[in-house]
């Protein structure tokens, strides 16, 4: 490569603007990615990062602004054109075919017949060169999330990209897997491939990236060198308000008999590609917040469904709530006994998108809120119940008659948390409470959870966000492959140990795969 060309930035965006109905997703965004550079695009959920990179990859078209590729003005009409320019993208949610093998999945992404000849050998070659072990003949549904991500990366690398866009790549990885990924990305950068790295994790951006562009509410608020700033400074740029230290006072642990006992709970997943639960045992004290960490897809949804009663256990004594055996009971009976359950999927599982807030309030609150009379819905009381949730939890909406799907993620989540909290449950099981929720709502949700625990409610918090677990929980355990580790006190836990537990089974299988390669 000649010297003057190295001076030209690889990619330059000038004044990119994208309008969605009711929201200006990108407002005159400028961005410059240099040659060989690992460039961070930093911002909260909803800051407009994903919209911006979708326009770079040709999935959407900008309303205004220019894209310069190696100094020349280009119009990127579709992903195929982006790939021809040399832009590769690894999405946050992978587009993989579970029933097909690794080599079949990659072949589907290659449009030229010539590229598919000897593909398995080239996959092995690339994956060993960049330290991304992959067995081309393995079926995707047998692979861990980390391995699946490698498929997407190898698929991009096969086309010799000049720019690799990675959308929140570490959100599904163990700390150890993330470390390996960083080594691969650094190596790619030294070999001439620039990387646009999207994340809201500040420490990893400080460790990995040479330059950063920070976005907030659709606008660029800063260009900076991440290593020159502390994580707190970056966070303040990202969310504008000064962060107040979010330390909750330690709560005394009650010496009453445990509220909830799980005794070797074993359940078969009812999802085609789900994870079966094996021998889950746990004691939960009054007023305790117990965190369950783990990488997505290791049995979290199944545990949620087993606890809520959506998949009843064959053995009544596998789940004991306040001394009553409820393993065989369904959700309504468990709610009657004081259980509250909030699954990960807000729209469609936690709430019904097409129903009003007042109806959604009735759905889980009718038993303890006595929102029905003589078998009929008490519309007045349901309305008042929803109204009180909206007031107490500052839900931004037009009122109890609003459809649930019209609310933003954060507002709907506040409503749903409020719905369960106002029923003063004895047990609350909550999965990914702040996933895709803005920082303000997340803080409100944390506050509600802690207050509930102070009032004596026992809480199981299932989360993939370790910071959240360390912030809120008294004890935690790690779920991996449908098995729960021994519980540990948060004060005694280290990130390294948790990371190993999270990846335990995946690591072991990788070694097994590496042998034939």
């Amino acid at each position: 490569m000649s010297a003057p060309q190295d001076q030209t930035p690889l990619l330059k965006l000038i004044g990119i603007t994208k309008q969605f109905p009711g929201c200006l997703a990108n407002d005159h965004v400028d961005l410059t990615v240099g040659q060989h550079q690992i460039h961070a695009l930093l911002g909260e959920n909803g800051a407009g990062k994903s919209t911006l990179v979708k326009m770079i990859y040709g999935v959407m078209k900008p309303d205004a602004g220019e894209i310069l590729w190696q100094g020349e003005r280009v119009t990127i009409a579709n992903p195929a054109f982006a790939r021809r320019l040399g832009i590769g993208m690894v999405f946050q949610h992978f587009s993989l075919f579970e029933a097909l093998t690794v080599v079949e999945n990659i072949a589907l992404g290659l449009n030229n017949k010539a590229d598919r000849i000897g593909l398995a050998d080239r996959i092995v070659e690339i994956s060993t060169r960049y330290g991304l072990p992959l067995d081309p003949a393995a079926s995707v549904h047998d692979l861990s999330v980390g391995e699946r991500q490698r498929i997407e990366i190898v698929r991009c690398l096969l086309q010799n990209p000049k720019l690799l866009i990675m959308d929140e790549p570490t959100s599904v990885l163990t700390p150890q897997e993330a470390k390996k990924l960083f080594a691969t990305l650094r190596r790619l950068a030294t070999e001439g491939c620039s990387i646009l790295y999207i994340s809201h994790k500040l420490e990893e951006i400080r460790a990995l990236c040479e330059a950063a562009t920070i976005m907030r509410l659709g606008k660029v608020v800063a260009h900076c060198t991440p290593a020159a700033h502390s994580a707190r400074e970056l966070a303040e740029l990202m969310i504008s308000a000064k962060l107040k230290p979010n330390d909750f006072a330690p709560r005394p642990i009650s010496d009453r008999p445990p509220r909830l006992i799980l005794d070797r709970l074993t359940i078969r997943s009812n999802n085609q590609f789900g994870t079966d639960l094996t021998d889950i045992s746990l004691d939960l004290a009054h007023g305790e917040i117990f965190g369950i960490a783990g990488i997505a897809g290791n049995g979290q949804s199944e545990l949620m469904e087993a606890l809520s009663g959506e998949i009843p256990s064959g053995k009544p004594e596998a789940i004991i709530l306040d001394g009553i055996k409820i393993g065989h009971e369904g959700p309504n009976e468990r709610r009657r006994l004081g259980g509250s359950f909030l699954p990960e999927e807000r729209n469609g599982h936690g709430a019904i998108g097409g129903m009003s807030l007042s109806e959604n309030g009735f759905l889980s609150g009718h038993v303890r809120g006595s929102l029905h009379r003589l078998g009929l819905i008490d519309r007045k009381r349901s309305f008042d119940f929803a109204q009180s949730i909206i007031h107490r939890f500052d839900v931004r909406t037009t009122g109890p008659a609003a459809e649930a799907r019209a609310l933003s993620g954060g507002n709907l989540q506040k409503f749903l948390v409020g719905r369960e909290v106002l029923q003063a449950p004895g047990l609350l099981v909550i999965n990914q409470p702040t996933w895709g929720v803005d920082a303000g709502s997340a803080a409100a949700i944390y506050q509600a959870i802690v207050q509930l625990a102070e009032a004596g409610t026992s809480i199981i918090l299932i989360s993939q966000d370790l910071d959240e677990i360390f912030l809120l929980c008294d004890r935690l355990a790690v779920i991996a492959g449908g098995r729960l580790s021994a519980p540990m006190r948060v004060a005694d836990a280290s990130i390294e140990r948790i990371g190993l537990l999270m990846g335990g089974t995946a690591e072991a299988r990788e070694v097994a795969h590496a042998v034939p390669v």
Partner: protein
Amino acid sequence: MIFLIVSFLVSMISASTPLLIAASGELIAEKSGVLNLGVEGMMLMGAIAAFATAHATGSTSLGMLAAIGAGMMMALLFAFLTLTLLANQIASGLALTIFGRGFSALLGAGYVGIAAPTLSKLNIPILSHLPVIGPILFHHDVLVYGSFVMIGAIWWFLNRTHAGLILRAVGDSHDAAHATGYPVLRIRYAATAFGGAMAGLAGAYLSLSYSPLWAQDMTAGRGWIALALVTFSAWRPLWLLFGAYLFGGIMFLSLYLQGMGVPIPAPFISALPYLATVIVLVLISRDRRRIRLNQPACLGKSFHAAA
């Protein structure tokens, strides 16, 4: 005794052929993620189209072409309802069967009890004169040979070609296929149309060869058996072949047993092929992991491309 065995095997082949043809078409449709329960209706339309055309023109080849056309038209109607208008596939498939039964009876009202040309047997030179083996293997009509070629071709298509890989991908995750840039709906239209063509051809076999007459509801539930075979074979072409012949074999075996005066209640004998096929195929496809890998995960789900 040898005569009995030969005639048994020949009857088995002719009983199994329509199942195999119809099921191989449905296999392709289902592998693309489309569950078309209208096989019975499409077969009946194929049967009457073939019979009427052969009767009018004297040509069984034109009859078979008409059957393919009729089956395809039915399948495209189904595809329009479910793929374009996003109607429920189960309900639309049932409606298609009911429609096909009624409409074929209406069209066939004037054809009951009359004769039409029959598919001629293709005698393979020399081989068909071999004793025993000759009549069993080398004295059949074109659809019998065709059904074997077809199932082999389908196996090869699904497992060895890029187009087959794309078809399986669309059935496994239409969202991922769409994101990768494949035209999900066009592929499903094509697969559904192929399923209809095969169902029509299976109907033609019934009305031009198996019992060369038109009778109302002459498929007698074979469309449903074909559907069941696809599921119970766990979407694997070679097991489908095995299942179709198992069913045909037991059906005739039980008839022969009845003819020889073995004291088994008649209703049990009529139920036996259904029972035996289901039990055997359930037993051989018990492996949960294999089913997970072969079952199209998007089977029966509507695809609506998000912007």
